[in-house]
């Protein structure tokens, strides 16, 4: 949950893209008006055009004075695709990312369900006197996750990159508490908040194939359990008292487990177009110290990008993911809130996102990049009841050295 992805960085030479475009247009127009039929397109056969990869763009030639007519942002990958590009040998890329993800509405399968339905029909794990299961009485209505990520990548060789990413998270959940043990009378609402460092990812990228248009590399990461899994929160109980207890699984800052994160990334580029696909997996290697682990996560992402002017690229992206339920349980995570049930995690999601990446070289900041990506789900089939995703937005600042 809440994993952020390494952004790519596309350093570029200083350009005068708009000026060049204007001049090109003026040239063609004047030649046409003057009866000169051709400016520079002559009779040789068409040759496939190639544009520099990010690694090539980052190469300092020690020669200025000639702008890139091809888009500097070519080969762009969306800001939220982790480890999608590699840096050349000896190069360092650092980045800061902020992501805000908002969750709202409760889902069972691909249908939304009201809080009233949940509190009158879904039995909890709590047993009342007489052996009957008590229904859930506390239903989350929204959740906001803010993540601040610092990341770095180093090119050991052109084929091998190392990367590390640490996170600081702030989570807040708004819950509605229903009065007593049955019925739909709302007693009130409460908010719970947690914050702190999340899990830390270390990994490597290994280039499998590269030609001028195509690039394929293997990702392998380990998620290390630096995030707390013993956070507590306070919420309003059905009896009207404020209870302080261990926060639900989704409100914990880390997973508590060492997770293997394999992946495979393909990127392509031709002219102003770029495209790619990436698979990412996340598999807990064992239970954590509290006795559970998250279900296996498999994500597939595809994207396309187009550079409208040098250094400015827009991307469209589709993400699909499947995650299993939590296995095991933390005995201290209990109560009448649905998030305390490890079965109510995981599911299937498909999201559409759009993004824009702007090379800092357009503003004299060579080697820097600003990327923004935003979107939301178009399909969710969740192991509910659980909150579904509503929307997300991410901003990334990157710099290469």
């Amino acid at each position, binding site marked *: 949950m809440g994993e952020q992805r390494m952004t790519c960085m596309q350093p570029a030479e200083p350009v005068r893209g708009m000026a060049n475009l204007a*001049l*090109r247009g003026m040239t063609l127009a004047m030649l046409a008006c003057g009866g000169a039929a051709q400016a*520079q397109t002559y*009779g*040789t056969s068409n040759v*496939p055009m190639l544009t520099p990869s990010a690694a090539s763009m980052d*190469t300092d*030639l*020690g020669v200025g004075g000639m702008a890139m007519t091809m888009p500097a942002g070519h080969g762009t990958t969306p800001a939220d695709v982790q480890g999608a590009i590699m840096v050349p040998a000896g190069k360092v890329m650092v980045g800061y990312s902020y992501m805000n993800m908002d969750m709202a509405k409760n889902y069972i399968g691909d249908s939304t369900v009201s809080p009233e339905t949940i509190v009158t029909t879904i039995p909890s794990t709590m047993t009342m006197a007489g052996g009957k299961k008590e229904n859930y009485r506390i239903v989350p209505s929204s959740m906001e996750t803010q993540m601040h990520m610092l990341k770095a990548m180093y090119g050991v060789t052109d084929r091998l990159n190392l990367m590390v990413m640490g996170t600081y998270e702030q989570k807040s959940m708004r819950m509605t508490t229903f009065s007593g043990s049955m019925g739909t009378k709302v007693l009130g609402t409460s908010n719970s908040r947690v914050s702190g460092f999340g899990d830390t990812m270390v990994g490597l990228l290994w280039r499998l194939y590269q030609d001028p248009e195509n690039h394929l590399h293997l990702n392998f990461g380990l998620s290390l359990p630096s995030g707390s899994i013993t956070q507590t929160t306070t919420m309003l109980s059905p009896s009207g008292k404020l209870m302080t207890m261990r926060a639900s699984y989704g409100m914990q800052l880390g997973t508590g487990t060492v997770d293997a994160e394999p992946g495979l990334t393909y990127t392509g580029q031709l002219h102003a177009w770029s495209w790619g696909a990436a698979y990412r997996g996340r598999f807990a290697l064992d239970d954590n110290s509290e006795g559970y682990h998250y279900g296996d996560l498999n994500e597939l992402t595809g994207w396309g990008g187009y550079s409208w002017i040098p250094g400015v690229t827009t991307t469209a992206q589709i993400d699909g993911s499947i995650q299993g339920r939590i296995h095991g349980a933390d005995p201290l995570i209990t109560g009448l809130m649905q998030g305390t049930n490890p079965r109510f995690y995981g599911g299937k999601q498909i999201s559409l996102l759009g993004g824009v990446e702007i090379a800092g070289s357009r503003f004299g900041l060579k080697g820097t990049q600003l990327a923004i990506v935003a979107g939301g789900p178009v399909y969710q089939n969740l192991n509910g009841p659980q909150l579904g995703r509503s929307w997300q937005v991410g901003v990334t600042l990157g710099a290469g050295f």
Partner: protein
Amino acid sequence: MINNTLSRRAVLAGLAATFGASAAAASMPSGLDVQLAPTTASILLARLIQDGALPGANLELWRDPDQLRAAIIAHRCKLFTAPTNLPANLANRGLPVKLLAVIGMGHLMIVTADPSIHNFSDLVGKQVLEFFPHDMPDLVFRACAAMEGINPDKDMRLYAAGMPMEAAKMVASGQVDTALLSEPWASAAILAAAKRGRKLYRAVNLQDVWIQHMGGDGIPMLGVGIDAGLLEAAPDLPATLLAGLHQAKDWVLANPDSAAALAGQALKISPPVFTEALGHSQLVVKSARQARPGLEAFYQTLLKLSPGVLDGRLPDDDFYLGA
């Protein structure tokens, strides 16, 4: 050793006389807009300007051929360095452009990370990256390949980058192994690759291939063009500039370190790259009229491949300036 002071004085005196004599008869522009190609040979015109030979001149590097064409058409650029086919093309299309001099011979070469490549035959089946597709570098490459019995479209996997800088970066970084590059991009790529432990070779010099098959002294590749309107105002200007270019060339060859420093300022070429490129840039100074036989052989070759490149014909006699 060149006497710099005398050289500068001679040029200044000539230009002053030229402008002074003609100023009464025709109005001269207050500042001459000069556009330089971002190549090594442009150092000669940069040296003239540095030495004060063109008082008030505004120096600018053009960034792609279309930018220069636009400036010439709009009469914003009166003096420029460019591939010699560019002014010929514009002149044949009716624009008042003349060729003053040739200042650089062939400086296109195959740069590769593959040490097994030594000639065009070795490129068969290989991927080769060129730049400026459909323009002079592409045409010269095709011409030289044809001389060697190679058809680039069939015998190799030919790709194009939009700009030489892109091609240089791609071969330096390892995105491609083999690229056609001009100077100083070839030197820049070789030095940039070396910093990363990547060895690049100058495998084939197209100037050598050309001479082997065509004879003569190679490809008259870079020239100095001039707006005809400027000649009306200063008819002695060609002779004066040619004298200055000769002296500038002598100064550059005698003072490579100073020339490298000037290249850093005027051409945005780092001194190490310029120094490396200088030995491969074939600097010459020939009046256009002197160079005409070689130019026409060059133009004929381009016309055979792509008539549109020169509007289907050789330039008229008055296109070539100088004695």
